[in-house]
């Protein structure tokens, strides 16, 4: 027996001596693996964190102040009436395959993006980009301001690739050739993606050349494993720190916690096509009845959320203060009175991703407490998406919505998406927003629209959440903006 113990311990010692990390690489653990890095099609935050800015770049981007800044376009112009949009392609930018980017590549990429992104197609009025020498331009009968905003910031990213990439018949691209400071050096689905410095990257305007030589993104779905990996030094940075882990981690000197701006909203989207919530009084009653704090803490614990019924995030210029939301101040008695006239169970639909099912259960128990019958349906993501399309099978669904740059990008504000906002006045107001000729005009229109929407309650926003990131305390220069980015970070190991 003793012999075995000695053997085991010596074995353990043998393996504990080897080195943990090579110094030039930064190891990052992400909760989610992007299904594809075709970021024109897929809008996952993890895909953005890996690919947008690192591998691919856009013609224009939005800076911290919400202003449009040039990237791959050396300049842009929008005519005074907003109906003519021009980008000038930057000279001397190389793709990862060595070829030089030109206006043709920019037009093909933007047109493919319009093909796969219906909301952008609508903003473009069905028009496409054309090439004129070194510039690309698009004309429309309506203002293209919102299209410009979308190119800069939409969840489906308008990134530029060589036009040859789009020649294949497949729906998704299979070659990832960009202009960014990093190129994909290794990719093992289910394991990790490694991106390495692109030798011929020429910094322009916005320097990204000081970051680490190699970034490795590991996919670690388990929150506890991510935390333990950060604590043991195996990972230099991790995303989605669990709320329960925050107290312990903030006492650890080796670790820094970063909390960015609000990253998105939780919404209870009501079915306005069939069932109980076709009645606006019922929708208002539900909004009055619920305890928003209860719902948010069911999912997030003690940290990382705020109670706020505004549809847009607090830091956004679109934000409308929720004081004017007549149905966000709790009135249990009134809510109960109206809702209890309904006999059948209220069907609450949610998916088991990101703990959203906990909100569904909290909502159910709150309603049951008031004697209102409920039925909770929790499904995996693919089934949830499918079930949602069937208006006859649910009354309210719960989902998380990542922050959007434009108010009209919230997908529950559409007559085509589940929830089916078919109110004519609301649709007209949203359409006017799409045609706004200046941002000031758009903000003003949204202010009115938000107030109207609060009144007809197409959805209830109990609050906003912010993702908490954990990094080693000697890692400097991490950029936090809808995810974390490392192109100008450095380690003082």
């Amino acid at each position, binding site marked *: 027996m003793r012999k075995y113990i000695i053997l085991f311990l010596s074995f353990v010692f043998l393996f504990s001596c080897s080195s943990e990390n090579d110094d030039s690489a930064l190891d990052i*653990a992400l909760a989610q693996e992007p299904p594809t890095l075709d970021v024109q099609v897929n809008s996952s935050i993890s895909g953005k964190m890996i690919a947008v800015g690192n591998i691919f770049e856009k013609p224009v981007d939005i800076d911290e102040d919400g202003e449009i800044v040039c990237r791959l376009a050396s300049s842009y112009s929008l005519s005074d009436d907003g109906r003519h949009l021009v980008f000038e392609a930057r000279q001397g930018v190389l793709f990862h395959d060595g070829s030089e980017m030109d206006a043709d590549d920019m037009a093909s990429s933007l047109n493919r993006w319009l093909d*796969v992104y219906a909301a952008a197609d609508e903003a473009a009025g069905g028009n496409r980009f054309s090439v004129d020498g070194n510039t690309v331009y698009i004309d429309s009968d309506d203002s293209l301001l919102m299209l410009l905003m979308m190119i800069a910031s939409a969840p489906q990213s308008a990134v530029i690739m060589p036009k040859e990439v789009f020649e294949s018949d497949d*729906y998704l691209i299979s070659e990832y050739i960009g202009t960014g400071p990093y190129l994909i050096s290794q990719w093992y689905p*289910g394991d990790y993606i490694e991106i390495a410095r692109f030798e011929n990257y020429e910094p322009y305007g916005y320097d990204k050349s000081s970051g680490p030589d190699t970034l490795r993104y590991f996919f670690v779905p388990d929150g506890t494993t991510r935390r333990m990996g950060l604590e043991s030094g195996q990972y230099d940075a991790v995303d989605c720190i669990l709320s329960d882990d925050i107290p312990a981690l903030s006492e650890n000197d080796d670790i820094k916690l970063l909390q960015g701006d609000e990253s998105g909203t939780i919404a209870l989207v009501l079915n306005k096509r069939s069932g109980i919530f076709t009645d606006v009084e019922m929708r208002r009653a539900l909004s009055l009845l619920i305890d928003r704090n209860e719902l948010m803490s069911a999912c997030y614990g003690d940290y990382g959320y705020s109670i706020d019924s505004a549809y847009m995030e607090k830091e956004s210029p679109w934000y409308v203060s929720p004081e004017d939301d007549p149905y966000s101040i709790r009135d249990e008695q009134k809510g109960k009175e109206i809702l209890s006239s309904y006999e059948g169970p209220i069907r609450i639909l949610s998916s088991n991703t990101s703990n959203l099912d906990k909100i569904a259960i909290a909502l159910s128990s709150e309603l049951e407490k008031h004697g209102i019958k409920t039925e909770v349906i929790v499904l995996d993501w693919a089934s949830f998406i499918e079930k949602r399309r069937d208006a006859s099978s649910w009354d309210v669904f719960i989902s998380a919505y990542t922050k959007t740059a434009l108010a009209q990008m919230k997908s529950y504000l559409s007559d085509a998406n589940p929830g089916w906002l078919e109110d004519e006045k609301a649709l007209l107001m949203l359409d006017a927003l799409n045609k706004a000729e200046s941002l000031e005009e758009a903000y003003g229109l949204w202010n009115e629209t938000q107030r109207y929407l609060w009144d007809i309650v197409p959805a209830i926003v109990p609050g906003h959440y912010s993702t908490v990131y954990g990094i080693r305390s000697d890692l400097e220069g991490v950029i936090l903006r809808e995810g974390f980015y490392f192109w100008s970070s450095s380690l003082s190991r």
Partner: protein
Amino acid sequence: MILTFLSVSFLVFSFLDMAEGDSSAYVLPEDAAEEEIAAYREAQGLNRPFLERYSGFMLSFMKGEWGISAAGHDIKSMIAHSVPVTISIAFSSIFLALLISVPLSIAAVRRKWIGCGVSVLSTVLMIMPSFLLSMVLVLLFSVYFRVFPVAGYVPLSRGFILHVRSIFLPSLTLALLHSSLFMRVFRKALAAGAESQYSLFALSTGMSEKEIAVKSALRPSLPLLASLVSQSLSFALGGSAAVETVFSLPGIGALMVDAALSRDAQLAGTVMILVAVSVAFVFFLFEGILPMIDPRVRRHR
């Protein structure tokens, strides 16, 4: 054999077909418009009738063209990346399980108090869920002692020691689970062997207890152990989804879970056929080894 592959792949294919939703939910954004979804389905061939898709899949599988997954990755290279992970963990976990269970079982037959300890241990291990066990091991070895990494896989090509380090904890987790079964069954067989007439005879000829345990009790129990090992091995080759998830290992189990969640019938079908082949292969191998260690089987033939 071929019937097995056909039925396995058919079942996987039809289950994923019956499940709600398809891979568009996985690849496209949550708020994808109807026309985007329709265009994706068209391009991926999801609109074609079930039998046409299934027979197309089987034909290209036979030809060795395994195609691309719903997310556009080459299935062959995905599998090539995950098979070594699972094989390496399967074999090392069986090896560790034998290392733990055989000496303990022999000791348990010889000393009563060890026997009690072993019973308790194997019961505890048997009822312990694998993810809990792995968490305990990670806390102990990775966070507290910092000896092994918390998660991730390092291929053999990056160095033997790094490789073994990365698979040690997951293998140990599975090994402890396997060994609980090994100990229960193997110990009983050993005890029966030790009390049998030939052992008594050996005792009377003056052999020591230790010699008896090894020579006359161990030998007849070996075939039983071999069949346990072959079962556990074929089980392990299917990959353990729970352990692979906790340790973020890109093995077959994790691949299957991903394929099912993303409704990727092409990928799931391919992986299932390969798992079925490997299980059949292990049983075939076991049938070959059995006569070598069990003279009784040889005589019956």
